[in-house]
């Protein structure tokens, strides 16, 4: 009985994410077309689109990761259907509110909503309080979900076991599956950054309700904003990795990966580094104490180390000269890891303060984070979606279609990202609705980006149709 429920809610999550994903890609393409001069949107529409594009993408790939680990976690512990459903309902309410606020209310603060911009009303008056309410609803919904999952893990594993600390001893009596370890590490990070969101919203509400008698500190608010924003964007990638750890070997017909002492150590360190890496968003705020800036650079470097050395190498070891059953699922994982590594290089370069001075808020920034989303985390989640969809329906897989999907994903993604990287190296600013004339390469690059993003959209639509069809079947089946 319970397993039917989890199947159905997971299907609903997948369909919701895919619908919103396609809509947000279209918004993204419209933005690039406008920047390229092929469209002529009013700046207010461009920036409203930009705001909802960012908010939606962060939101959906976070919940996609959560839905993924929730489904797979049923293999180890029982999870709470109620929490899952609550999160879904609150997410839908929050997302619908955000779309109305941005597209009807013309609320255009970018997804980072840097203080004090939400209070400098340049949109419908109701939009600011509605935005704060929507963000609070999302934070609370996700907080309930993550704490509930953490609770279920802790029912079976002690804290030490959940963090795999017993693997530091010679012969651990209890083995912690890597999936549980990574989920646990990620959930603690997620809970932390959602608490940050709660604090941030409380400070916003305090100022909003005080009618001017209480004013926030801009530096603190910026720190909190990126503590929340950067961390959740980073953690959603790790949710995707947890799924990869669980499924990559299994789909390839190999023995499941085991936790070893250094896997445990690497992921435990990741938890610490990921919570301090956000300082790199404030490099150009010279007001931030220098110590924090240097911690930011070191933590950004270190955050890449354990994950890269352990995960990437594990994937290599699993593939190198090994007979493996390749399918769309593990190919998406494999390509996703490559995209993640390449985006990681872009990120490490940008996380270097002396480079950041000429890269900060240029197109290099969307270049690198789109790399490990468009060609990384999205592929991890799509791999899960696809794998999920063929578990409970007919397993007829069209090999040619799979090849087409992968080729178009790679071509579209690579071209789309390259336009961003070249633009970043050409000093073109990000978040400009129209480019000043002196950036001669900006418009052509934007059009190239739009064209390749359209190529990327084709396989997404193919996957959308095939996966959604199967998920709808799951939804209406009684088994």
């Amino acid at each position, binding site marked *: 009985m319970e397993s039917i429920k989890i199947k159905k809610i997971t299907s609903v999550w997948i369909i919701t994410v895919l619908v919103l994903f396609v809509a947000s890609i279209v918004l993204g393409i419209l933005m690039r077309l406008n920047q390229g001069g092929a469209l002529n949107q009013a*700046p207010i529409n461009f*920036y409203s689109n930009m705001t909802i594009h960012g908010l939606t993408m962060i939101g959906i790939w976070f919940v996609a990761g959560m839905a993924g680990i929730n489904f797979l976690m049923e293999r180890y512990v029982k999870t709470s259907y109620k929490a899952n459903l609550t999160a879904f309902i609150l997410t839908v309410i929050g997302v619908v509110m955000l779309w109305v606020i941005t597209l009807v209310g013309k609320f*255009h603060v*970018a997804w980072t909503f*840097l*203080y*004090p*911009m939400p209070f400098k009303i*340049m949109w419908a008056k109701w939009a600011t309080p509605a935005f704060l309410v929507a963000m609070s609803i999302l934070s609370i919904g996700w907080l309930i979900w993550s704490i509930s999952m953490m609770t279920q893990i802790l029912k079976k594993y002690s804290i030490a076991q959940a963090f795999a600390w017993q693997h530091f001893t010679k012969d651990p009596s209890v083995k912690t599956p890597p999936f549980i370890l990574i989920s646990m590490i990620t959930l603690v990070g997620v809970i932390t950054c959602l608490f940050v969101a709660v604090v941030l919203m409380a400070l916003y509400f305090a100022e909003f309700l005080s009618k001017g008698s209480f004013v926030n*500190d*801009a*530096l603190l608010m*910026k720190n909190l904003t990126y503590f929340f924003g950067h961390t959740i964007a980073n953690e959603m990638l790790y949710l995707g990795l947890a799924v990869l750890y669980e499924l990559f070997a299994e789909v390839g017909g190999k023995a499941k990966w085991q936790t*070893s002492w*250094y896997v445990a150590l690497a992921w435990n360190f990741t938890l610490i580094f990921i919570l301090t890496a956000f300082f790199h968003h404030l490099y*150009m*705020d*010279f*007001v931030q104490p*220098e110590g924090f*800036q*240097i911690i930011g*650079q070191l933590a950004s*470097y270190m955050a*890449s*180390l354990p994950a890269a*050395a352990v995960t990437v*190498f594990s994937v290599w*070891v699993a*593939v190198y*000269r090994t*007979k*493996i059953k*390749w399918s769309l699922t593990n190919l998406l994982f*494999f390509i996703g890891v*490559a995209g993640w*590594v*390449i985006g990681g*290089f872009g990120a*490490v*370069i940008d996380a*270097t*303060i*002396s*480079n950041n*001075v*000429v*890269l*900060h*808020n*240029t197109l290099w920034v969307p270049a690198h984070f789109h790399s490990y989303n468009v060609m990384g985390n999205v592929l991890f989640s799509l791999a899960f979606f696809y794998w999920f969809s063929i578990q409970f329906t007919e397993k007829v897989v069209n090999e040619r279609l799979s090849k087409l999907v992968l080729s178009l994903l790679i071509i579209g993604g690579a071209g789309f990202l390259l336009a961003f*990287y070249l633009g970043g*190296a*050409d*000093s073109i*600013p990000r978040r400009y609705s*129209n*480019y*000043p004339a002196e*950036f001669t390469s900006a418009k052509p690059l934007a059009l190239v980006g739009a064209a390749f993003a359209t190529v990327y959209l084709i396989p997404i639509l193919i996957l959308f149709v095939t996966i959604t069809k199967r998920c709808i079947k799951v939804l209406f089946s009684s088994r």
Partner: protein
Amino acid sequence: MHQNSILLLFFFLMGIALIVFTYIFFSSKKADQGMSNPLKKRFWFFLILVFILGIFASVTIPNSPYFAHAGETPAKVVHVAAAQFIFYMSEQAIDPAKPSGHPIELPANEVVEFRVTSLDVNHGFAIYDETGRLITQTQAMPGYVNRLRYKFDQPGKYHVLCLEYCGIAHQIMRTSFTVN
């Protein structure tokens, strides 16, 4: 130029990654016993990464902009107040109640200091040279002053663009100054 070497480094690293991933992918087609001694290899891989990143950090951190021209007295100070959607630049302090600016001329090959603040939301203060290259930047934050020191070695006209999204006219918020 800085950006070119960054792009070159990125392409180099990307190339290596692509070669490794492609090679490993095709190696699975002619499978044998798999990687020998992966644990030991992983350890070395990790150590090399730590080593490279350690060098990278120790070389780059001292070049951070916070330490630029720290021990010198600037030849000229320019006060900058950013506001939606305009930059005020003046050699006199700017009164937020009635901000005003004037055309700025700066000496070449001498340290100048920009004292940057914001009168409303967060803004960016990014200096572009005549060829449209971003050469340095800082942020403008309400309630704080950021001090950016720079030595211009090329005379000419420089543009300032806002590089922190600040609202509907962010893309046209700009000013310029000359270096003689």
